[in-house]
């Protein structure tokens, strides 16, 4: 199972991770086109926290025993059997925000583009390397293998 390791000692707070997360969600690598022509950009699925000298990006930890899975009343939140990533089936999600309440990292976002649904980092499993990891200029985010 993969997890994105957050190394705050190397985060420079540039937020390139956020920018590229948005692009990855849109599904293109052409940032200029995305930011110019896509009318409603999704929120990044990670948060850059900052306070004085400390900065770091934080996204789903892909917990072994995830609270969000336990709290989900619809079955929309599920573990991808192939990659082990926790994913949201936005079609099934009804927007009850139980996962938002339960996630101890606070990295599940509420979205509402016509339909309420939770949104979270799914490790870019359809993309390959997570966009944030790939574009972090200082390797503050690295993809690691955990567990068995």
């Amino acid at each position: 199972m993969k997890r994105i390791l957050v190394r705050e000692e190397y985060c420079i707070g540039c937020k390139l991770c956020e920018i590229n997360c948005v692009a990855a969600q849109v599904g293109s690598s052409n940032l200029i086109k995305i930011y110019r022509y896509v009318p409603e950009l999704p929120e990044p699925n990670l948060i850059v926290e900052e306070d004085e000298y400390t900065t770091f990006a934080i996204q789903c930890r892909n917990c072994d025993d995830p609270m969000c899975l336990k709290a989900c009343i619809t079955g929309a939140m599920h573990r991808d059997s192939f990659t082990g990533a926790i994913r949201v089936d936005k079609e099934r999600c009804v927007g009850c925000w139980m996962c938002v309440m339960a996630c101890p990292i606070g990295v599940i976002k509420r979205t509402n583009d016509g339909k309420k649904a939770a949104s979270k980092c799914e490790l870019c499993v359809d993309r390959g390397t997570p966009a944030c990891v790939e574009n972090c200029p200082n390797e503050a985010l690295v993809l690691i293998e955990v567990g068995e």
Partner: protein
Amino acid sequence: MAKTRTPPEFILERDDYKCIRCLVCVRVCSYGANFYDEKENRVYTENSKCVGCHFCEAVCPTEAITVKRNKFDIKPSAHWTSEELFDVIKQAETGGILLTSMGNDKPQFNYFDRLVLNASQVTNPSIDPLREPMEIRTYLGKKDAYLEIFEENESQVILKTEVSQQLKLEIPVMFSAMSYGSISLNAIKSLARAAETMGTFFNTGEGGLHKDLKRFGKNMIVQCASGRFGVDIDYLNSGAAVEIKIGQGAKPGIGGHLPGEKVTEAISETRMIPVGTDAISPAPHHDIYSIEDLRQLIFAIKEATRYKKPVGVKIAAVHNVAAIASGIVRAGADFVTIDGIRGGTGATPKITRDHVGIPIEFAIAVVDQRLREEGIRHMASVVVAGGIRKSADVVKAIALGADAVYIGTTALVSLGCHLCQRCYLGKCNWGIATQDPKLVKRLNPEIGARRASNLLKAWTLEIKEILGGMGINAIESLRGNREVLRGVGLNERELQILGIKAAGEAW
């Protein structure tokens, strides 16, 4: 006269079409040159704040930024360059010494590029480094002119001489003395790890030893300079060798000064001085006013390290360098480090940097020749520094007679430095010449170590390629082998001092 507005040195061009207002450039600039106007939804740059470090250019995700030099189109004059003009203006305004950083940037001091190397053709075969062993291991330290060997019989050959302690370098390139204080801990860690990986050495500089660096002792040379910061018995014994610093190429004849505001808690601990006090390295060592004083210090350190560590002496290359080096060798140094006029630094008066000392090429040639003439070349290794930018420079320096080279600026460039020469401001955007924790962490030592190692790996390959091309497979056959060098565009006297022939001359 009214205050002069100094025109910006750099102009940051932002392609507004490509700019996606991600504000990365705004967030990263430690000089605050980039800013965002929310009302206009536009990112602007205050060019006068830009130092030309190119960090924002490097992180801009859409290549919207180009940092260009402002040409300062004053009326053309061969005598008055814009640099000269603005130096005068600056001094007229401030009344102070012009400060700068890194090495001499003037063209006339470079001789490496006027030397060319030889290669085998027909009469002796070149050697393919991919197929045959190609050896560049180097030992630094005092050698013996005669080894006593007892040959009992065919299989019993015994070395009787007890050879002096040596530094074993898998590549004859080391990282120059750069102190914790002048550069960040992450920068030093990067070099330390790279030195460990590549089997070479880094140098603590005059900054004492941060506790995180202790584990790199096997690959560390500890420096003892005029301020004696952080020097105690443990420090002297924590590395593989000790280097006494008398001078450095970027500022021969003057000392160093780390302002109190940079003496943070961690730096105060490693330098062993109170937080916030200025760290002043005097121009001379106040216990060394003569060569015999130096000898005493060399042997005091040898005593302190029980004769287990080679002790070197670093000097700036000045006019009388050959005689001084000879004196240092005779004073008992195991290696002599010579730093040429192009050597870098964190802060130096511009006048010193640009006008004092001699190019390292000449220094190598005269020191090596002098020591050989005196029959004492084996008594100490010669390490040279100041302007080594590439493996070709390493090869040429060694062919001129150096045992190994130090790289400082080049090492920092491998870590990201773009030579903006503003180290003395302590705001280095690349996390190198700064102690600001927010900036320091921009240099991830894992990446830094990888990059510095890669540089040395690349050089290793290149040096081997060049050796193979010359038909030799061990670096000792290159060392001092000036036959492989020829000069281009040098006058008779320069050729003679360098001990080389002109291009076109045969053996």
